[in-house]
């Protein structure tokens, strides 16, 4: 199978869906000729023209609001938010308007909107271009949230998102845009709400989202060397969350580490860990461990920034401690 980069996969998904459905259009800052700073949308304006690949002023609340209105009235906008950090600018339009319109209208109106953005630190981009804010939007009923962890997932999940009649926020890992992975030439979709078990194991379950999937896979490699058999699960979407697959795994392994690049406080790891605690309690042989971004604004200095994100070594060390039965917290 051919391998393409994550940014190519996203580009293909958008192009295929725009060819398939004339109501799909792309809107955002520098999405046309510039193709976004990550060159994800390059070439689309040549094929689809400026009526369907729309460059906007730097006005996130405004163009997200416009996309919400357009989605309510018969089109399917794909909105590009250049950095996930800019989500804070569009919270009203996304969370008060898009998320609630279907419910508040008693099901009469719908908002088939896709908001593409990104997450991930260690790009030396400072505190306002490095955040992973998916937990914020996953908190809001009415929004779906997808976290692709490879080129293959990015394409399949985005195509599903575009066809979804609900507002979907899809976070790409900005460090992964150039990472290549096998992607079929034939069309495929990845359904929402189904985790992928990337590696089966019996000693500990590692749940890794987005950028942390690879961290968990590398940790599993490290652990295998020490005779610890780790299972790795990528939830793929956190709203909806396929908790059944995670719970089934934890019931088997009795131990879980949840790894996500969002902040630890009140984050995705807290949500998944608490569901494990609630629903697999009597199968747990160790506390569920959460690893996330440190609860600090992302620092600029490489010496500091690298400390803030979970590493394979850190995940493996935690796994070793809980598998050995060590006291992992003060009694």
């Amino acid at each position, binding site marked *: 199978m051919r391998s393409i980069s994550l940014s190519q996969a996203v580009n293909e998904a958008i192009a295929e869906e725009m060819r398939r459905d004339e*109501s799909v*259009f792309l809107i955002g800052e520098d999405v046309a000729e510039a193709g976004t700073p990550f060159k994800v949308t390059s070439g689309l304006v040549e094929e689809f023209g400026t*009526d*369907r690949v*729309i460059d*906007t*002023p730097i*006005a996130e*609340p*405004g*163009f*997200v*609001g*416009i*996309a*919400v*209105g*357009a*989605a*309510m*009235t*018969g*089109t399917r*906008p794909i909105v590009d938010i250049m950095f996930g950090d800019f989500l804070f600018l569009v919270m*009203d*339009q996304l969370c*008060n*308007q898009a998320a609630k*319109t*279907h*419910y*508040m*209208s*008693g*099901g*009469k*109106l*719908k908002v*088939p909107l896709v908001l593409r953005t990104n997450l991930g630190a260690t790009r030396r981009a400072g505190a306002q271009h490095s955040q992973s804010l998916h937990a914020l939007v996953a908190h809001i*009923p*009415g929004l*779906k949230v997808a976290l692709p962890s490879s080129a293959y997932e990015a394409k399949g999940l985005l195509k599903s998102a575009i066809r*979804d*009649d*609900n507002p979907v926020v899809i976070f790409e890992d900005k460090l992964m845009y150039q990472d290549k992975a096998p992607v079929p030439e034939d069309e495929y979709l990845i359904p929402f709400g189904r985790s992928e078990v990337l590696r089966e194991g019996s000693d500990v379950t590692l749940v890794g989202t987005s950028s942390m999937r690879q961290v968990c896979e590398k940790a599993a490699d490290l652990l295998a060397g020490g005779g610890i058999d780790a299972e790795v699960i990528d939830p793929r979407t956190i709203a909806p969350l396929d908790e059944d697959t995670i719970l089934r795994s934890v019931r088997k392994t009795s131990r879980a580490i949840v790894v996500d690049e969002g902040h630890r406080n009140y984050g995705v790891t807290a949500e998944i860990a608490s569901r494990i605690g609630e629903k697999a309690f009597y199968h747990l042989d160790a506390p569920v461990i959460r690893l996330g971004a440190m609860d600090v604004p992302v620092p600029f200095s490489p010496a500091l920034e690298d400390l803030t994100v979970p590493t394979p070594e850190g995940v493996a060390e935690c796994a070793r401690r809980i598998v050995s039965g060590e006291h992992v917290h003060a009694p």
Partner: protein
Amino acid sequence: MPATGKINTESYMRMYRQMVRIREFEDTANQLYLSARMPGITHMYSGQEAVAVGICEALRVTDRITSTHRGHGHCIAKGGEFKAMFCELLGKEEGYCRGKGGSMHIADQLNGNLGANAIVGGSTGIATGSALSARMLGTDDITVCFFGDGATAQGIWYEVMNMAALWKLPVIYACENNGYSEYTRTDEIASGSIGARAEAFGIESHQVDGQDVLAVNDLAARLVERARKGEGPFFVELMTYRFHGHHVGDINRDYYRAKSEETAWMEQRDPILNFGNWLSEQGIASAEELESVNAEVRADAEAAVEYAFSARFPDASEVGKHVYVEAS
């Protein structure tokens, strides 16, 4: 008052009836609130009827509007029915939004009402997007964005006006300047000229007497046709007045608005009384004919309220429905 605008008697009588319907709906809702028979809070449109009716009478069913927290008037003027509206206000299953929206979120998509919005300025983007999609889909429907003077302080309005002007979208920004931004006089929150702000984006800007339904309708009809032809967007500032407080519970408001001012507007600038008098003077409708319209509307409202009170509340199972669109 000028005798221009629609010369069709049927059209005049329809505008009169629509304004009376709004007033009657609001008076009834106010009584429901004051007698503690209605849950929640609501914002009265009374006094501003000529704005909603004058504009919506210039629109087609397929043209769209976005509304505000003070939105009952827009909903009625765009074709809304009493029964479904009262049911919504009382949280009943037969409400426009199955009781899940309430007063501040009534939406009636079959009549092109994309919904009231409880965030001040929150619908300016939606209206602009609606205009964008109409053009993308090749229809000549236009969108009217109703908002108050208070919303002119929100940044998103400027962002979307900029884009609407850049992309020449078929949208009319209808700013209902009722003189008060919640509990504060508008001149305390708005510097310079509101109309000039639209002009700064190259948008043709108008100001009109929002108490004169014929003047409003005349201007709206002209702008709507031009917007349909791609000459938009437009901005209209409609000078009007809300007869009640910010919401039904805003009773003691002397601290921000003098009683004498309210009385003067109600006695001299009531859009319904003045239009009724004009209809009589012009020999279009006698006082008795107007009174019979009033009586019919009153009876409709009473029947609708009675119906709404006896209507069912949504089943508990409804609480989890419509969070997401079910996969078809």
